[in-house]
């Protein structure tokens, strides 16, 4: 998995609440069997008109936001389905950090699986950062120090230690768990005795 350490750049403001996974990547793009190539379809219905032409005033279609690596969005970002195509499309576009007041659980998890840092801030801080983003002030995200700097603002954020470590080191989660294979086997042996009906073959 790609590592995440720090990030500097212009942030794109998207002041909409409840941005759901259908908005991030609509269903027609879920038919792929690959993880890549979805960036062009990110926010498809907000980004393109019915004929497939770019909608000029949508933020990610305007310079310099079309190069943003950071997104600042309204409450409850990523609600809806479990589709990992949502973080895949953000990442493929180039977004590596999303800032909001809250995230839906599955989306939040999925971000960390793909080297994307979702940051939760207070509503007051979100307002400040949204304004800073609109004014094209450079953001500086520092994961080791857990600080967002933008202009005069310096905002600390919380992140669970294991998630931070995984991002910093780009760890392979499955590889780590396979190190516990003996424990998994022992668990199964124990349950085969105690709850045999669970081991009836499907």
């Amino acid at each position: 998995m790609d590592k995440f350490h720090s990030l500097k750049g212009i942030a794109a403001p998207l002041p909409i609440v409840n941005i759901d996974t259908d908005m991030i990547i609509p269903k027609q793009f879920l038919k792929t069997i690959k993880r890549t190539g979805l960036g062009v379809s990110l926010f498809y219905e907000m980004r393109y008109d019915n004929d497939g032409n770019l909608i000029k005033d949508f933020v990610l279609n305007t310079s310099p936001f079309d190069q943003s690596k950071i997104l600042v969005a309204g409450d409850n970002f990523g609600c809806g389905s479990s589709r990992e195509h949502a973080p895949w499309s953000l990442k493929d576009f180039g977004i590596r950090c999303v800032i909001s007041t809250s995230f839906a659980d599955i989306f939040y998890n999925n971000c960390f699986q793909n080297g994307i840092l979702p940051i939760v801030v207070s509503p007051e801080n979100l307002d400040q950062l949204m304004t800073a983003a609109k004014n094209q002030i450079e953001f500086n995200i520092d994961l080791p120090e857990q600080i967002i700097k933008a202009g005069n603002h310096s905002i600390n954020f919380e992140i669970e230690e294991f998630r931070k470590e995984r991002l910093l080191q780009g760890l392979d989660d499955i590889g780590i768990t396979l190190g516990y294979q003996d424990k998994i086997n022992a668990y199964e042996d124990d349950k085969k005795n105690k709850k045999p009906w669970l081991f009836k073959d499907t």
Partner: protein
Amino acid sequence: MSNQGPKTLFDKIWSEHLVGQREDGTNLLYIDRHLVHEVTSPQAFEGLKLSNRPVHRPEATIAVADHNVPTINRQNIEDPQSKIQVETLAKNTKEHGIQYFDLMDQRQGIVHIIGPEQGITQPGMTIVCGDSHTSTHGAFGALAFGIGTSEVEHVLATQTIVQNPAKNMRISVNGELPFGVNSKDLILYIIGKIGTAGGTGHVIEYAGSSIMGLSMEGRMTICNMSIEAGARAGLISPDQTTFNYIKGRPYAPGTEHWDQAVEYWSSLPSDNDANYDHEIVIDSSEIDPMVTWGTSPEDVVSVKGTVPNPSSAKTENKKKSIERSLEYMGLKPGTKITDIKLDKIFIGSCTNGRIEDLRKVASIVKDKKIASHVQAMIVPGSGLVKKQAEEEGIDIILKDAGFEWREAGCSMCLGMNPDQLKPGERCASTSNRNFEGRQGRGGRTHLMSPELAAASAITGNISDIRDFT
């Protein structure tokens, strides 16, 4: 969470499935059953291949294609991408020795319909699937939640998931449900009350006499939409209703283990004095048949109500959100919900595509005709639901009324297959999401119960089942 003291249903399932703690402090939770479908699994199988990792326990996994399968002429999937996805699932499951119900198998259907139908879903289990509506299985007192594709790969490779415990929330609904009010109205009302982020970080346990009085199918509708309330999982205590439903199904415990299983299942309900991080109590007499007016499942109102006015919003953000929804939905503030004219009716989905739903619809539309300006489609949740309905003559009643009778699948709930709304079309839908573009670009979705959708099909407007004769 301590090991001592009274426990909730969630706490009990959690501690029974803890394999251990990893060095990074995270918990490894054992997964009893893994359901797999064509859309969120190809990249997971590809990942296994790239790292040369086997599936840890293929017999704990069941696969089915449901999301993008056509509901007519299914021998030939016209969309080449959908065809590749379905073929990829068939190939991957064969390669790894995973049981797969193919499109011609009568057991094929929506993954969350067939799990319970086959008896795969059982109390006290942990169940995951790369689909957010996995919460459905919580109706059996199983801890069931949706996961992303990377986690699908993790479960295939290790039969575990890395997880930290959720918080406990209990929503109790008490009293006899008023006439015309059913499980769908109940869950829409709850989502309206706590909001789409209300359950974030929590597992919701539904309790109270209104909930426990529901059939298993009604309970599934409730747990299904837990995700729309922000919770990854919903739970309902297993009881005699649950055991009766499971007994005799193909994958249920056989007679040799039945009593042992029931004894264990009976120990699962939350202890009387268990602690909850959050508690909500609702009196069911305050609930009306509910309908959504906007583009979030929390945008919900009584069928007797009106479209809200943005100026009544408490915050600037909420006001903007209502304005955006109303513009998308093409609705004016103050419009009576029952004055909203419809173009399409969709009955189906993992929320309301079961036999009881179809029976209710049939009883309402029997000997009637759908309004001349609407197109109505009914998509059974599984091949077996379809077969059962046909044996009961339900298909004839529905076809006589003007409904299209389709093959099983997710269909227009998410419109990955050809069943979609056209821009501006307005649909009464028994599904679970009314997001912008969900049922087709520019499509306008009003979520409601099968009873309301059936009555609305006949009148052509959103209709209150209580006024319907």
